[in-house]
């Protein structure tokens, strides 16, 4: 009973804990325990043949435990986590001159303020393809935004806006 509890606890450690020391100790103890159990059951005269056949499953568990141990101790999971996302950089040659100049200017600003810079290509549309809003549209937007902001403070009715 105690051995069974110990086996489950060791398995829990091997499969769930990330600490390499704990995984190493628990995994080694568990492996020894499994091998010992396997040999003992195979050699025991008190165990019937059918039960002995089921002991092969212990080897499967042993292989699983050793694999998990290797993966965790070698830090393979960390490598997977650190793996860069599959992003293929778009060639800058497709960017227009104004896009490249703008990017360079912005990146210099970012560097000056110690803001991290995006390693891949990131552009706003080229000047020739952009049509900015008309002045009247922007004026209307500014007035609407001012009203909404004032309303959020309950001030939209307070002032006499009579001109």
């Amino acid at each position: 009973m105690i051995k069974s509890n110990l086996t489950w606890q060791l398995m829990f450690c091997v499969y769930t804990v990330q600490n390499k020391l704990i995984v190493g100790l628990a995994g080694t103890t568990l492996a020894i325990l499994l091998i010992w159990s396997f040999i003992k059951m195979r050699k025991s005269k008190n165990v019937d043949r059918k039960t002995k056949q089921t002991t092969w499953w212990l080897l499967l568990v042993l292989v699983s435990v050793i694999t998990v141990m290797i993966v965790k101790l070698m830090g393979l999971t960390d490598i997977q986590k650190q793996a860069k996302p599959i992003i293929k950089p778009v060639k800058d040659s497709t960017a227009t001159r104004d896009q490249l100049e703008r990017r360079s200017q912005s990146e210099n600003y970012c560097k000056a303020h110690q803001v991290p810079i995006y390693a891949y290509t990131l552009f706003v549309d080229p000047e020739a393809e952009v049509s900015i809003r008309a002045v009247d549209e922007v004026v209307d937007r500014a007035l609407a935004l001012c009203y909404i902001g004032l309303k959020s403070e309950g001030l939209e009715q307070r002032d006499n806006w009579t001109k």
Partner: protein
Amino acid sequence: MNKDFNITAKLTPSEKAYATAKHPTEQQKIDANWRYESLHVMLWALGFIDSLSYPDQMCNVANDVKIIHGLTAQQFRKNAKLRTKKEILDQADLILRLDWACVDAQTKNKPAPANLDKGVVFERHHSLNWLINYMKQDWDDVTTDT
């Protein structure tokens, strides 16, 4: 203000919903309050503000409101001088990169880098994307892709 500036006609559907709500939600009020940052960008685009400072703090609302408050609707419209396409695109490109830095930090559960205020950065990105007609989206639908 509504009467003098004919504001109702200028509001977007979501702004109208807030403006006419008898009991606006807290979120609606918070969102509405952030619109001051967008107003700041519009005032810059219209030449009432000289430059957009590094977005590490919120704008001075009193100064911005004073600009509109001190003028009639006609004077405000007449005095407005829209900045050049280059100037607006320069700011749009910059805010795209600043917002990317904020979003990237957020995905890594880190605070916004270099003391950036991600709320201010987001509002500016939204406003500048609207100004450059990004994806031809209306104000309520403007996306801030990074």
